[in-house]
Structures are given as C-alpha cells and as structure tokens.
C-alpha cells in the first residue's frame, strides 16, 4: 500500500521499541514509506533472540544470514537507531506519544510500535528436570549455543553421546508453572534439533518425549516425517516425569509410554528441555501476560492506547516469518491510524 503523498510520510515520526525481527521489519517498512523512525533496543545490538539461534526451521537457513538480511533492510538514513537504550514508559502528548527512555529528553512520536519480544521460560522452575543442578541437562537455547560453538561441545567424556533426549512442552501447557498456553514453536524446534543431533552423531539414539506433536506450519510435518524416516529419531508419547544423575553422570529419565501404557526409563548423555515462550517486559506491560489487542482478529492495536501497536512475540508466540509479517502489518496499521487522524 502506498499512502497518498500529501497525507502522511515525511512529517511523521514513529517509535519502534525493540529491534528483533518484528521491530526491524516494522522499522524498515515505515522507513520505506518516508517516516522518521526511532528504533530503540535495550541490548547493545539488534536482533534480539535471533542472535542466539544456529539454524532456523523448517528450511534450516543460518540464523546469522537471516539476521544480515534484516539488518540491511534497516540500513536507511531515516531510521535513527538507539542501541543499548531501554524505554521506560510512553505517555500521551499532544495527539501523539512521548517516549521516555534511559537518557535525556523524551522523544515525541505520532505512533508507537511495541516489539519487545518474549522471554524464554526459566527451566529451573521445573525442578524435576534438574536444570541448573545436573550439568548434562540443558535447554533448547543452550543447545543452539552449543551448535554455534561446534560439535566438540556436545561430546561426553571425549566420546560421542550414546543417547540424547528432548522433552517437549517445558513451560508450556503446564498449570504447575502457571502456563496455560502452547508455545507453538517448541515441537518443530525439537524436531529440527533432533535432526541436527543425528547429523552430528549418526550412531546416537535420539528420543523426543512429547504430549502432542504440533507441527502446524508449512513444511513442519514434512520435517517431522523426515526426522522419523530418514534420521530414525524416536518419538515417544509421554512426558518425562523426573530426571536424575546416575553413576556415570548420565541423566536417567522416567516417563510413561502412554501408547504402550507402560512406564519407561532410559539413560541419556544430554537431556534437552524445549523451553516455552513467556511474555517479555515492555513499557506498556500491565501484568505478566502477552499484550492483548482491541481487535484481535483484524489487527493489533493496544487496548485504550490509540496509535500504539504490538508486533511480534510480545503479543504471543510467533515464528520468525510470523514476527516479520506482524511487524509489517503493524507498520501499515500505523499509516491507517495517521491517515484517519487527518
């Protein structure tokens, strides 16, 4: 869409809070339409969580390359980047919003896009898995890190691991830790990482313990089948109930194979917890939940805050393409909003 040149554009300023995939694509969309964009990122570099990943499902693009593309897209002179500068609050000011940040005068903007992203579930809250207690219990995020660092970080006492287990739904769909929703992306992450393990260690047994497999996205189910058929990853329906260390410092798992309706145990060299997504903290946060919307089906305008829109995972678990799309859509909603004000 191309706003008619007289209505909005040059004169308008938009603040984008958070420079993850959603924030970056929102910023680049707005910049392309001649807005002045203030892009705030509390970290010292752009990218958010994307910086922590190795490869992206389902097609396994390298995360850093995708990051590169996104960075190029915001390399425009009408995007002012405020790196390492967190936003404390936004307050209404003459028809727009005043963005109060870490240092100096608040910046006045006609509209605000909140793209503050999410936090990973803190696996230590699921004590029974012994994360933070046993050295060989790690999260999917740690695993991405190890994959970036290289194969040898995954060896056990210098040899290839004999077995690796993934636990799905850690910090998702679990009232015990007060998470009622599905984080959507852990299943496919588990599938992708299981494949990566098999590629690194073909002889290693890889188990995925799941409650339901939710391979909802394009190409996800195909990847699931590939993992089973081509890589021989074994998917066991049933949740790991507890983990403990055995004499060789391997992790001993207990679970119920609900399809065999028999309890099951197995020792593994790595227990990988597929941690879910929690709401991040943002200047507009009122409670510990994802940002809601006035019009959840058709847009993402924050309730009672005209001109403020959410983008990306701050409004709920999203994949990278979904975040990018929601970033762009937020940008166009900003334009609608400003047009309607004229």
């Amino acid at each position, binding site marked *: 869409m191309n706003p008619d040149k007289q209505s909005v554009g040059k004169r308008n300023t938009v603040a984008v809070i958070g420079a993850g995939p959603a924030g970056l694509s929102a910023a680049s969309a707005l910049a392309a339409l001649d807005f002045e964009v203030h892009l705030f990122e509390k970290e010292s570099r752009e990218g958010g969580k994307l910086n922590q990943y190795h490869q992206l499902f389902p097609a396994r693009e390298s995360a850093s390359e995708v990051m590169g593309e996104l960075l190029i897209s915001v390399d425009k002179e009408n995007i002012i980047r405020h790196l390492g500068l967190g936003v404390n609050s936004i307050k209404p000011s003459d028809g727009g919003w005043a963005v109060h940040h870490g240092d100096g005068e608040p910046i006045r903007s006609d509209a605000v896009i909140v793209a503050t992203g999410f936090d990973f579930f803190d696996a230590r809250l699921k004590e029974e898995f012994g994360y933070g207690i046993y050295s060989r219990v790690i999260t999917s995020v740690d695993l991405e890190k190890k994959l970036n660092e290289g194969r040898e970080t995954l060896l056990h006492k210098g040899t290839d691991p004999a077995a690796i287990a993934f636990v799905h739904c850690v910090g998702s769909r679990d009232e015990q830790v007060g998470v009622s929703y599905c984080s959507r992306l852990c299943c496919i992450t588990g599938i992708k990482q299981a494949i990566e393990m098999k590629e690194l260690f073909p002889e290693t047994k890889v188990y995925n313990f799941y409650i339901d497999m939710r391979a909802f996205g394009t190409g996800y189910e195909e990847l699931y*089948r590939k993992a*089973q058929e081509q890589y021989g990853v074994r998917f066991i329906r049933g949740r790991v109930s507890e983990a403990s260390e055995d004499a060789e410092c391997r992790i001993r798992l207990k679970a119920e194979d609900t*399809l065999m309706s028999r309890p*099951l*145990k197995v020792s593994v060299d790595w227990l990988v917890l597929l941690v879910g997504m929690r709401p991040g903290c943002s200047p507009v946060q009122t409670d510990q939940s994802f940002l809601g919307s006035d019009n959840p089906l058709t847009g993402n305008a924050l309730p009672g805050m005209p001109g403020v829109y959410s983008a990306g995972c701050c409004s709920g678990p999203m994949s990278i393409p979904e975040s990018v799309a929601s970033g762009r859509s937020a940008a166009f909603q900003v334009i609608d909003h400003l047009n309607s004000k004229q």
Partner: protein
Amino acid sequence: MKNRFGFEIQDNRQIDLDLADDRVNDEVSAIIRAWRSCLKCGNCAAVCPEGEGVYKLDLSAFLDLSAFQKLTGLDKCYLCGKCQLVCPRGIPTRFVIMQVINYMKEYGKAV
C-alpha cells in the same frame, strides 16, 4: 511364586530402553525405512479383520523396542493387507509383518 513370608514380589512393568534389544527393529527398518515413520495412530490395528486386532496385533507397538522382547498375536495375521490401505504414512505394513516374523524367528523370539 510366593516367598516363605506368604506373598510374591511383582516384576517391574517398566520398559528399560537401555536394556532393550532392538535387533529386529534395526534389521526390519533397514529394509523398510518407511516403517520408522509410524505415527502410532492405531489405524492398522483398528482395521485388522482378526477380530481382537486392536489388542492382539498392535502394529503400532512394533516400533517400541520393548515390544520385541516378545511379540504376541502375529500368528493371527492374515496378511490381508487392509492395514496397508489405511496407513496414513503409507507404510507397507504387510511386508513389515512378514519381515518382523522372519527376524523374530531368526532371533528366536517367534511366538
């Protein structure tokens, strides 16, 4: 088998994957790789003309190594191939059964 205190000690129902003998599984899935993609939907068992199929001939149980310690019910199979027509993953289940039986025999696990 009661002990001298007048009660018996139950065996553990637990599947111990560390001890599981997966020779049959390996041999057969080497021949029929599609087999590994079993979703355990149970469609094969449900369609089995052998009446008690669901319990007697649980194809989906094949994937569980523990099941290979002993496979009961295979002798009930008619090899009719209905299961193969309903398998959502298109696994040649009929051939799977033939192969499994052969290897069960080979490894002295035949029922």
